[in-house]
C-alpha cells in the first residue's frame, strides 16, 4: 500500500497511508486461504466474518463485501484504519507465523472506502416498535448501540456534549491517521438508519439522567474516558505544559493546525517532550512534528515491549523523526521568570516487579537524574471516565467511584433500563472494544425492550 513519504508528510495533516487500489486489494485477498476454522476471527472482538468478506473482495464484489462487514461492524472505515490489528485479527491469522498475515485491516479499509466513494446503500429498517432509547455520548460505543437498535426499529436519540459527534474519533485521533471526512461519512450512515443526534447536550447539565429515564424506555451511557490524568509533579501548570487532551482537541476538533483561518490557536515550541507511551502520546508527538517542532522526544518510563501503541504508528513516528527515550520518568518541570516551561528534570528507571497491570513496574534509579531543555510539554499518561456529570446516580459507580459498573456481557448496570459500555466502564481501551461493548449492550437492550409492556 502506498504511503506518503516522511519528508512530505511531516508538512501536512494529510492521511499517511493511501489505501489499496482495487487490484492491490484483490491480490491481497487472493492470498487468504479461507481457513475453515478462521482463527483470525478469534482475534476480532466484534466477530467480523473475515474470510467471508475477503473472499467477496477476491471476486471483486466490493459492495457485497461491505454489506458483509457491516453486519457486524458499524464503523469499518474507522476500524480498518485504527484497530490494533497486530494484536487482534492479524495476530491470529495462520499466515502470521510466517511473518506475513493477511492485511485484514487494510482490506477492511479498502472495502469501506470503496463503498463510501460509490455510494452507501442503507438497508431498510423494519417498522417502528414505538420504543424510545436515549444514548449518551456519540463515540464508537454510543454509535454502535444507536445503529444496532435503529436497525431493530427502535427510535434512538444520541446526546452529545460537544458540537461535533464521534467522541475520540473526532477530537482525539488526528486527521493524518483518521480523516474527519471518513468519520463524518460513517456517522451519516448511522443517521441514515434513522438515528437522531442532539449536539451541545451535556447530560447531567442540560438534562439529568433522571429526565432521560422518564422520557425514554432505556438509556445507554457511553461517555468514554475523557478526564485527563495529571502527573502531580512540580511545574505541571507552567505555560507550555499541555494535557494531551487539550492539545489534541485544539488540533483535531478545533482545527488549530489551520489557525488563523480557524480561530483556535495552539502553540508549539522548538523542543517538545511528550510524557507517556500509548496511542495518545504517539499521536501528540506526530502532531507536534507537523506543527513545526524541531525536536520531539517521547519519554516513556517502561520499554518498547510494554508500549501499548499500534505497531505501525510507532514505526511511522520514528520515520517522521520522533525520538523515543525509554526507561525515563519526569520528576519536575522548571520554568523561566515569566512562567514558561524551559526544562524537564528526569530520572532513569529500571524494570522491577510485575504490577497489577501485569507489566513490570518502573523503579527510579537513585542518582540518575538529568535534565532536558524543552519549551513545550504534552502530558499523555492516560484518561479516566469523567463521571462528574453522572454523579447524580452514585449507585452506578464501582466501589472505587472512578468507573461505571456494568455487566461485561450485557452492559446492564444495577439500575433497570440503564446500560453502559466503552471506556466509561473499562477505562481507556480501544475503538473495537468500545464497539463490542456497544454491540452486546444493544442486544441486551433489545431484549429488555421486548420484555417491557
Amino acid at each position: 500500500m502506498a504511503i506518503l513519504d516522511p519528508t512530505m508528510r511531516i508538512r501536512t495533516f494529510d492521511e499517511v497511508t493511501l489505501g489499496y487500489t482495487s487490484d492491490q486489494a484483490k491480490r491481497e485477498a487472493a492470498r487468504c486461504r479461507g481457513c475453515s476454522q478462521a482463527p483470525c476471527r478469534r482475534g476480532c472482538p466484534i466477530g467480523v466474518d473475515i474470510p467471508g468478506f475477503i473472499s467477496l473482495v477476491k471476486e471483486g464484489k466490493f459492495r457485497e463485501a461491505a454489506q458483509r462487514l457491516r453486519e457486524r461492524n458499524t464503523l469499518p472505515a474507522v476500524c480498518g484504519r485504527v484497530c490494533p490489528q497486530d494484536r487482534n485479527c492479524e495476530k491470529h491469522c495462520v499466515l502470521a507465523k510466517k511473518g506475513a498475515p493477511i492485511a485484514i485491516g487494510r482490506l477492511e479499509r479498502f472495502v469501506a472506502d470503496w463503498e463510501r466513494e460509490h455510494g452507501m446503500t442503507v438497508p431498510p429498517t423494519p417498522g417502528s416498535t414505538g420504543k424510545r432509547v436515549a444514548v449518551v455520548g456519540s463515540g464508537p460505543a454510543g454509535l454502535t448501540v444507536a445503529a444496532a437498535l435503529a436497525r431493530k426499529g427502535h427510535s434512538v436519540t444520541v446526546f452529545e456534549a460537544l458540537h461535533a459527534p464521534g467522541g475520540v474519533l473526532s477530537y482525539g485521533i488526528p486527521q493524518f491517521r483518521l480523516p474527519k471526512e471518513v468519520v463524518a461519512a460513517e456517522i451519516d450512515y448511522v443517521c441514515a438508519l434513522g438515528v437522531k443526534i442532539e449536539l451541545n447536550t451535556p447530560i447531567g447539565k442540560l438534562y439529568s439522567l433522571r429526565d432521560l429515564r422518564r422520557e425514554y424506555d432505556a438509556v445507554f451511557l457511553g461517555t468514554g474516558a475523557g478526564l485527563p490524568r495529571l502527573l502531580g509533579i512540580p511545574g505541571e501548570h507552567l505555560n507550555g505544559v499541555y494535557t494531551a487532551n487539550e492539545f489534541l482537541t485544539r488540533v483535531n476538533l478545533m482545527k488549530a493546525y489551520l489557525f488563523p483561518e480557524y480561530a483556535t490557536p495552539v502553540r508549539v515550541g522548538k523542543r517538545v517532550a511528550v510524557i507517556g507511551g500509548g496511542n495518545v502520546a504517539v499521536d501528540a508527538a506526530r502532531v507536534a512534528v507537523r506543527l513545526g517542532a524541531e525536536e520531539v522526544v517521547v519519554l516513556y518510563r517502561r520499554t518498547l515491549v510494554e508500549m501499548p501503541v499500534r505497531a505501525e504508528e510507532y514505526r511511522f513516528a520514528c520515520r517522521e523523526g520522533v525520538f523515543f527515550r525509554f526507561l525515563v520518568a519526569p520528576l519536575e518541570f522548571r520554568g523561566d521568570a515569566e512562567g514558561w516551561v524551559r526544562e524537564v528534570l528526569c530520572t532513569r528507571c529500571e524494570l522491577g516487579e510485575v504490577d497489577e497491570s501485569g507489566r513490570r513496574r518502573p523503579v527510579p534509579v537513585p542518582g540518575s537524574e538529568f535534565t532536558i531543555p524543552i519549551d513545550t510539554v504534552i502530558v499523555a499518561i492516560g484518561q479516566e471516565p469523567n463521571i462528574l456529570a453522572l454523579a447524580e446516580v452514585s449507585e452506578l459507580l464501582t466501589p472505587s467511584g472512578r468507573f461505571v459498573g456494568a455487566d461485561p456481557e450485557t452492559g446492564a448496570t444495577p439500575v433497570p433500563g440503564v446500560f453502559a459500555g466503552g471506556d466509561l466502564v473499562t477505562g481507556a481501551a480501544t475503538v473495537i472494544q468500545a464497539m463490542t461493548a456497544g454491540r452486546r449492550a444493544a442486544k441486551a437492550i433489545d431484549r429488555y425492550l421486548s420484555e417491557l409492556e
Partner: protein
Amino acid sequence: MINFPVVGKTELAPGIKKLVVEAPSLAAKAKPGQFVVLHLHAQGERIPLTIADFDREEGTITLIFQEVGLTTFQLGSLEPGDTIRDIAGPLGRPSRVDYFGKVLCVGGGVGCAPLYPIARALREQKNDLAAVVGARSREFLILRKEMEQVCSPLIIATDDGSEGLQGTVLRGVEKYFREYGKPDYCVCIGPPVMMEAVCSFTRNYKVKTVVSLNPIMVDGTGMCGACRVVVGGEVKFACVDGPEFDGHLVDWELFRRRLQFYKREEKLALGAFLRKSRSAGER
C-alpha cells in the same frame, strides 16, 4: 440543538454588548452562576460566557460580554435574526444561594454581568445585600439600575472619578467596611487583579469571599484540563468544579499567568479580523 437565533441586542456601554438568544431548553435549566460555551460558526473558537440572565417563559438566555478579542468582536457584530451555531450548557456548578445574613457583592467592569443574577437570587433568600461596583469611568458602568433594585447601599468607584469614588473597587470595599462594618459573606467577580486585591483585603477580616474564575477553556465539560486552577493546594478544573471558588485559597499568580498562554496568537487573530472588517467598511 444547533443554530440559536439572536432575538435582541443592546449596547450597554462602549464595547460591552448584551445579546438575548433563543434557547428554550437552556433557559429552562439555567441557574445563577452557570455559564455556556458558544461556538459561532464552523471555523470559530469555543468561548465561555456567563448566563447573565434567563427567561424561562420566553425561552431565552442573555449574554453580556466585552469585546476583547476575535470571538467577542464577531459575536458583537451579530444582529437579531442572525444565529449562533452552537451553545452548550448550562455548565459549571450553580452559585451557592443561601441565607448568609449581611452580604457584600463586588463587581468590576463586565464582571457585573455574572454578578447580577447571583445578587438577585441572594436577595430572594432575604439576605441583607450591599454592593460595590467599579468601572474605568462613568460610561462603562453597566447594570447599575438592576443592581440598585436588589442592593443597598450601592457604592460606585471609577478609575477617573467621573462617578462615585475615584479609584478601584477596593476603595469602595474599604468604605463599606468602614461605614457598615464587616459583612458575613462576600461575592466578588471582575478582572483577576481586582479579585485578588479584594480577597487579600477580606482575608484580613476573615470574611469568606467567593470569586468566579474565568480561565481559558476549550470544551467546558472537564475533558481538556485547559481551565485548571490551583485552589487550596489542589488542582481543580474550573469548568466542572467551579467557576466559583473560595478566593482566599486561589493561587492567583498561577491563575493570572495561565491567562497569558495564547496572548500572541490572540493578538494575531484579532488584528487580522479588524483589518478585514476595516477594509470591508471602506469598500
